[in-house]
């Protein structure tokens, strides 16, 4: 039995949700979607933004046309492309071995052949920074993909079926949302012995999905109200057809936007976990490990901190700017 829902609980479909859903690096419990913490009991009169909605195809093509002309998108896209390439083939631009270190050179500054100098263990900072990209990009991309899939499936189902399932799934979402993220990381990761990136990714998924889930739920509820969905339903379309053919294409935009922004914060979160001593483990090379190691030597050898931290900031920046650009492009009201 569908609950009484406002005709359009969101003033601007895909526009509002993304901003609400961004997360803070200090605690992913950041934000929730407007009204979705208790969507089914919110009633709202016609808003100023109400109008004929649903431009299923033109939304995407419009967005793409916009993006192609947006310098922010082009620049961040190129940066990300570059990062992906060096993640796959770091030896393209770094000939050294990131694990080959000579303590005699510890903390030495820039010198020919070693433009970024050496770290506290006498490892080449340039090589480590290049090789660290792979880990950070892997963590960011994998965590985001998994969070997005898990979150949209659960949130989407909750929004689509409503009623008991909505209440049930929403409460589950709340449960995971209520655990402070850094705290959860400390607890869960302190017992991990594996030196791969998967435990870190797993933890991010476990505590990160509620964020996407809420947004997905909200946008599915919006999409569900659209006339064409109602029409398809009236014509006897099955639930799976409704979900896959009609609702998903229209509800996915806000998820993509938030996910892009979240990607950056996951990368930063990995560094924070390393700082607290529960992040990735050697021999994995990661910016987080290097930044946390360098943070103690900030007075003597700032170059140790500068390069990996700069690389991390640039990466996070690129993903957030990309998400920003996509959001603007997908939001008809800001055009």
């Amino acid at each position, binding site marked *: 039995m569908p609950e009484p829902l406002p005709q359009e609980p969101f003033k601007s479909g895909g526009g509002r949700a993304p901003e609400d859903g961004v997360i803070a690096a200090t605690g992913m419990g950041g934000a929730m979607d407007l009204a979705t913490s208790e969507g089914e009991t919110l009633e709202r009169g016609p808003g100023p933004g109400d109008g004929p909605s649903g431009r299923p195809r033109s939304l995407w093509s419009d967005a793409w046309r916009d993006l192609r002309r947006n310098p922010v998108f082009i620049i961040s896209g190129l940066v990300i492309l570059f990062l992906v390439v060096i993640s796959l083939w770091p030896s393209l631009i770094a000939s050294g071995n990131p694990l080959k270190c000579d303590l005699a050179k510890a903390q030495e500054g820039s010198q020919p052949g070693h433009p970024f100098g050496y770290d506290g263990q006498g490892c080449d900072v340039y090589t480590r920074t290049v090789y660290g990209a792979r880990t950070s990009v892997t963590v960011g991309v994998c965590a985001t993909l998994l969070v997005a899939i898990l979150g949209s499936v659960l949130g989407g189902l909750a929004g689509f079926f409503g009623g008991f399932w909505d209440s049930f799934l929403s409460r589950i979402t709340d449960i995971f949302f209520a655990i402070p993220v850094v705290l959860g990381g*400390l607890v869960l990761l302190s017992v991990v012995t594996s030196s791969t990136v998967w435990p870190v990714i797993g933890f991010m998924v476990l505590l990160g999905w509620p964020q996407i889930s809420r947004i997905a739920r909200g946008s599915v509820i919006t999409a569900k109200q659209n006339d064409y969905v109602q029409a398809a339903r009236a014509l006897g379309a099955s639930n799976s057809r409704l979900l896959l053919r009609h609702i998903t294409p229209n509800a996915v935009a806000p998820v993509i936007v938030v996910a892009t922004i979240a990607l950056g914060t996951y990368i930063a979160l990995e560094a924070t976990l390393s700082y607290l*001593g*529960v992040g990735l483990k050697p021999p994995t090379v990661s910016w987080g490990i290097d930044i946390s190691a360098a943070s103690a*030597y900030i007075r*003597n050898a700032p170059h140790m901190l500068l390069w990996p931290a700069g690389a991390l900031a640039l990466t996070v920046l690129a993903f957030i700017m990309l998400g920003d650009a996509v959001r603007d492009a997908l939001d008809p009201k800001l055009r």
Partner: protein
Amino acid sequence: MRGATHARWAAGAAAVALAATACGGGGSDGDSGGGDSAAVLSSSWGDPQNPLEPANTNEVQGGKVLDMIFRSLKKYDPETGKAEDMLAEKIETSDSQNFTVTVKPGWTFSNGEKVTAKSFVDAWNYGASLKNNQKNAYFFGYIDGYDKVHPEDGGKQSADTLSGLKVTGERTFTVKLNQKFSTFPDTLGYPAYAPLPRAFFTDHAAWVKKPVGNGPYTIESYTKGSQMALKKRDDYPGEDKAQNGGVTLKVYTDNNTAYTDLMAGNLDLVDDVPASQLKNVQSDLGDRYINTPAGIIQTLAFPFYDAKWNKAGMEKVRTGLSMAINRDQITETIFQKTRTPATDWTSPVLGEEGGFKEGLCGDACAYKPDEAKKLIEEGGGLPGGQIKITYNADTGSHREWVDAVCNSINNALDNDKACVGNPIGTFADFRNQITDRKMPGPFRAGWQMDYPLIQNFLQPLYYTNASSNDGKWTNKDFDRLVNEANAETDTATAVEKFQEAEKVLRDAMGAIPLWYQNGSAGYSERLSDVKLNPFSVPVYNEIKVG
């Protein structure tokens, strides 16, 4: 949690700084050498892990407090570590098994109560009794009747008091041991042996909230988890009176912050300078930095319960690993000479006659990368092709030296994945995995002496099934030599026997000695006469302010 809290096993540390009488330059009241005897200094601290009961405190941070508020029968000289009489007037024995203790008159607790023989006997009975959960109970294990009050095998406790303890007068009591133990009186400087006032037993909850002792300081206020203010006790009957008005212990989560505070003039004394700041101490502090040897040695232990590490030929691999570690470079670069490369399994604070023998390890502890590679190959190579050095990551500085050791081994073996660090998130989990015998390879082992005897550096760590023999190394010859040494009454002969045992340990490379640890501390311009005792705890009562 402060940096090195867990790096040391520090039961003995607490009792140590009793000090002043022996070397404390006067120590009488008026003679405060220009310092302001009412001024209070602030010092870095870590939240104690256990309640501040004497028999329940086994780490440095709680020990610091006990060190200030308690005095025991004996005290350890802050310079030499030798046990000297404190509250004990005399401790007599004719057979090394039955002791008669006479307590000095005139001692009081800070609440005015007299310190009597009963104060000791009650305290010891409390400490030994299983039902009180005292973590240092094993200190009383030599006293007759311990098996009744503290059955180790999980049996039921059948007595509340130790049958070997008897009060025979207001100031005398007798101790009967369950075996001959001639140096028993020397162990009585431990905090576990401190006397306790009646209030401890009658209103235990209130006592734990604000402990009352018989030392030169009393606790003025205690804000849980953040700071403790101690003030000088004016009616303190001992000769090692506090030379300052009091000490405020401030809890720091991160010793880097403590050091930053010291630089900014926000803190007077940091007794654990973080490794990353050691490079700056000269420019930041000048001569307000002390770096003195302490009775601490760091080693790498091996999981001998794992057949891979225990099979024939592995001693070559272990020796090879030892020779692949460039100790000089690591102690210089990572630790800025606050560690000294180890050449035996004891500590320089013992002195030559105490059993320290420089170079006993010989070539096995020298950096010889080529030979190291050859030895490891001869011994059959590294088990599984890679070793993981396990350590706990929560206390900061371990990561740096483990990475450096691994890099050194990797460079010697010319294989960048031969050695990797294996950090464990918390100390508790680290200990758990050691207890459960789950170490995948070599692991960090640190030992802080209880008392300055060579026996203490060998027996608890390498004797078959000893309590800190975490690697479960076992060797009949070693055990036999230790037994012989213990039975020896002549110190010099005993030390020789111990050193013979140490050579057995070397030939089997039961553990790789890394370096001797120094105590390092920095202090503000307001302070003078700052020193660290051999347990690397500041001798607070001698510090002058102003």
